[in-house]
């Protein structure tokens, strides 16, 4: 670049590290700084659109002044999901957003390791009914137990989690019989969760949703898939065909789920071993086959391929690991029943 401005970047080696699922601290900081830059750009565009003298313009101007005085707070404030969600939703509404909502959200304090946030702007951003069936004390206890589980058997996930996920939005599951978890790239650091039935389920959901945030931040810096590529992929975790970017998101998240269930099967509670080996057998095969389709599709950019091949380095060797015959058979039956994962399942739209 010749304008003297520094751009965010990721080398092939760094993309491979992200694909490996083990994120060193400096790389986590790089991803957070990319999100901060995006949110600064969103806020400044809103300030200009709204007019510097408007209530919104004055609020954002005051935020710049405050952060100028308190530079140590800057990164934490700017990567907060409340800032990202408000900025995203306000800009997409052409600058129409209530600045008091953001001021109030930034004024709320976290309690414990996570902030349990039921207010705006996250409430509207996620768009689900807030779950009120579980007390804050119960949420705090389950989060503590889930973090203990992760720290005990999934140390690298636990380390990244505490750096990247700051906020839980408790929501009612759209399908009440099933647990729900979801993320938004705009609301970096937040996870919408239905009340979990236990700490193991919560730990698995954390492991899954963390990956979406990592990949979302990566994609703010570099394109991982070819824009407008026509390929659509039938993947076993969705009923609808997915484009390449969404398929890569699913693969990356399920690679972590494979590793979660593998570790729980091998080293976790004996009572849960069968459920964990069944899940492991299913998702290693599903993830490997979806990844094979994506690698063969031509829909990945060189950056995406560097990352995806590193994911393959985690997943493909797992296929050779012996698991109980019933678990392997159950996985094959499950995948066959979904009628996916054949070469013909790559669909193209014109």
């Amino acid at each position, binding site marked *: 670049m010749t304008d003297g*401005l520094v*751009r*965010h*970047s990721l*080398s*092939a080696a760094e993309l491979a590290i992200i694909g490996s699922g083990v994120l060193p601290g400096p790389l986590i900081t790089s991803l957070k*700084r*990319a999100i*901060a*830059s*995006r949110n*600064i*750009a969103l806020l*400044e*565009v809103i*300030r200009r659109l709204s007019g*510097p003298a408007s209530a919104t313009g004055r609020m954002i*101007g005051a935020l*710049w002044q405050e*952060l*100028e005085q308190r530079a140590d707070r*800057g*990164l934490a404030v*700017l990567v907060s999901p409340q800032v990202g969600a408000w900025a*995203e939703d306000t800009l997409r509404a052409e600058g129409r957003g209530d600045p008091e909502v953001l001021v109030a959200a930034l004024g709320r304090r976290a309690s414990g390791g996570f902030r349990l946030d039921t207010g705006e702007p996250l409430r509207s951003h996620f768009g689900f009914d807030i779950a009120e069936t579980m007390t804050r004390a119960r949420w705090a206890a389950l989060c503590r137990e889930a973090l203990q589980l992760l720290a005990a058997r999934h140390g690298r996930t636990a380390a990244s989690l505490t750096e990247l996920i700051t906020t839980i939005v408790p929501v009612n*599951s759209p*399908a009440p*019989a*099933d*647990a*729900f*978890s*979801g*993320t*938004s*790239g705009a609301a970096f650091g937040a996870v*919408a969760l239905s009340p979990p039935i*236990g700490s*193991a*389920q919560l730990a698995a959901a954390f492991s899954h*949703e963390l990956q*979406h945030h990592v990949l979302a931040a990566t*994609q703010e*810096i*570099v394109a991982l898939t070819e824009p407008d590529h026509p390929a659509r992929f039938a993947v*076993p*975790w*969705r*009923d*609808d065909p997915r484009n390449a970017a969404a398929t890569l*998101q699913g693969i990356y998240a399920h690679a972590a789920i494979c590793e979660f269930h593998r570790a729980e099967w091998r080293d976790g509670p004996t009572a*849960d071993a069968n*459920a*964990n080996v*069944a*899940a492991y057998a*299913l998702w290693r095969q599903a993830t490997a086959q979806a990844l094979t389709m994506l690698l063969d599709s031509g829909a990945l*950019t*060189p*950056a995406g391929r560097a990352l995806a091949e590193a994911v393959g380095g985690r997943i493909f060797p797992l296929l050779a690991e012996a698991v109980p015959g019933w678990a392997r058979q159950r996985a094959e039956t499950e995948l066959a029943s979904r009628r996916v994962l054949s070469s013909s399942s790559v669909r193209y739209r014109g």
Partner: protein
Amino acid sequence: MGESKLVDLSRMPFAQVVEVADEVLRESLARHLATGPAGHRWNKSDCPEPGYGDQ
């Protein structure tokens, strides 16, 4: 690995953000805004995972 357009505003003095050119902000947000809101969201609501809820 592909040229990023996202300028590192996180290391800039906050007082200088108001002086950043419109074009730089537009370029920085181009990749993000090229994807609609739904493209930035992921969930497993329609992919119940065996072993999660029935352990």
